[in-house]
């Protein structure tokens, strides 16, 4: 009886704590989106109120949408992010498998070499990267961004995935070998499905810096046709610093694609985590 009550109280406390933190996480986003639909006076008079018929206004969005091509920016960001993540996951998992599964000369050295990239920000090499892209005629192409982001994401992917691959039981792989599976089949059919949760985690961590990056789009692909959402919204906001309606609308427009992407993506992540936990 009393045990049931304490567990009830504990669950209640957990919910209170989680709701409190959820509010902290969501409030700034809510505040921005709610105020982007209000008239200038209402933004200042009642910042916390949701828009009502009297205070509703789309003036900010009108200002922002008159300039620039948000759909084009969004497409660029999606192409760059999705292709980079796919390459990072495939190449990263393959390399992680080689490092965690086989003993060969130079294994440790190779692991350290690949791990170097976790600690060195690829940005430190920007000047030489730009020189290289100019030389290969890749400036102002999405390919340049994809190459940079694949290189940037690989070290962390290899590092995390090999941590997880060490937890895959050796018995399973050896059973596969006895059954005559090739090393490639063991990797693609036995190991990859088992580390799916780790892959989902790596995908999220790879995606964030790519989607959010301002630096390389600005330097490698600043052309109108190759601008990403982050670069596009940064330029918007820079233009409208004193126009609060426009700033809040530009921010909301920049948040919106992330929200959509996340709603699609988080399902996959949750399915990945719950489906094939490594056990």
């Amino acid at each position, binding site marked *: 009886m009393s045990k049931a009550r304490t567990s009830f109280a*504990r669950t209640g406390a957990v919910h209170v704590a989680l709701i409190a933190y959820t509010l902290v996480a969501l409030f700034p986003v809510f505040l921005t989106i709610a105020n982007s639909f209000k008239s200038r006076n209402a933004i200042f008079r009642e910042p916390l109120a949701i828009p009502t018929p009297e205070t509703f206004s789309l003036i900010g969005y009108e200002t922002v949408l008159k300039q620039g091509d948000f759909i084009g920016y969004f497409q660029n960001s999606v192409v760059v992010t999705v292709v980079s993540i796919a390459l990072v996951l495939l190449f990263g998992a393959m390399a992680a498998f080689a490092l965690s599964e086989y003993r060969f000369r130079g294994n440790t050295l190779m692991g350290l070499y690949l791990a170097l990239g976790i*600690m060195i920000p690829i940005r430190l090499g920007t000047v030489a990267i730009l020189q290289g892209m100019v030389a290969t005629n890749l400036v102002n192409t999405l390919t340049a961004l994809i190459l940079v982001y694949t290189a940037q994401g690989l070290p962390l992917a290899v590092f995390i995935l090999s941590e997880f691959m060490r937890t895959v039981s050796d018995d399973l792989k050896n059973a596969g070998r006895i059954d005559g599976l090739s090393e490639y089949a063991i990797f693609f059919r036995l190991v990859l499905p088992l580390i799916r*949760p780790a892959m989902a985690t790596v995908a999220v*961590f790879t995606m964030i810096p790519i989607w959010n990056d301002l630096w390389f789009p600005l330097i490698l692909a600043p052309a109108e046709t190759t601008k990403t959402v982050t670069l596009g919204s940064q330029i918007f906001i820079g233009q409208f610093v004193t126009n609060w309606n426009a700033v809040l609308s530009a921010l909301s427009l920049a948040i919106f694609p992330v929200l959509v992407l996340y709603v699609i993506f988080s399902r996959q992540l949750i399915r990945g985590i719950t489906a094939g936990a490594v056990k």
Partner: protein
Amino acid sequence: MKPRETTLEVGELKRPRRWHILVFLLPALIVYTAVMILPLIETLRQSFYNTVDGQYAFVGLGNFKVLFGDPRWAADFWNALRNNFVFFLIHMAVQNPIGIALAAMLSIPKLRFSAFYRTAIFLPTLLSFVIVGFIWKLILSPIWGVAPYLMDLVWLKWLFAPWLGRPDSALIAVSLISVWQYVGIPMMLIYAALLNIPDEVIEAAELDGVTGWSQFWKIKLPLVLPAIGIVSILTFVGNFNAFDLIYTVQGALAGPDGSTDILGTLLYRTFFGFQLQLGDRSMGATIAAIMFLIILAGVSLYLFVIQRRMRRYQF
């Protein structure tokens, strides 16, 4: 790939070559080396070069002597380094404990709405620095008055100050904004690690009467220590590369009065120039080299001391 294989065929005579290892490694290796390592080496090389009498020449450690010897450079550098350590310590002290606590709560079996909480709390991590920086600038702005209004609701209005504008609080404020944004990463990594603890281990603990708090401290936390180690080193590296948020919130000068200047912003100003100051490629490369050494030291500490001491459990 093919030509490479034929050149290596000589070795095959001695013992069977395990080609699959090469095939697994090669794609990652090529992209990584060509786009990341070679440009980085080239940049580091430039830290030993400078323009002397109009000639681009090797100057040895000359650039480093200027950085540590010239009072103007040295003051900026030590200021940035100290701020960077404060930035990192705030992350370790605030972000990671919150992340662990959230992960522990989310991993409670059969917790209702846990998918919703997880989704919501991770959301800020997905927003770009541009968005986060501008949103918090607006919220903390005394002109809009959202922050003082909210604090008034809990009778704390007297505590409010334009934190971002004051040299003694700006760095803490920026660090906390960064914590707000990135708490999702430790949460997710540790959450995944907690889910990977086998049920048998938990069941055995419960049979022995180890439940609730003591189960968390004695069973789960030790088992997720490797994940916490990864989180810590990622935080260290991330913080010593940080640049974007401070650039968005406080500008390239990292004001007020350089109080939020960290190595990333110092590198940016030096490398690319700012306002009247001209960009200096060689000094920029020098600062990049110092950042490289700091990060190298931290990661070596993790790899060779901390990770070695951690026990690995195979289930």
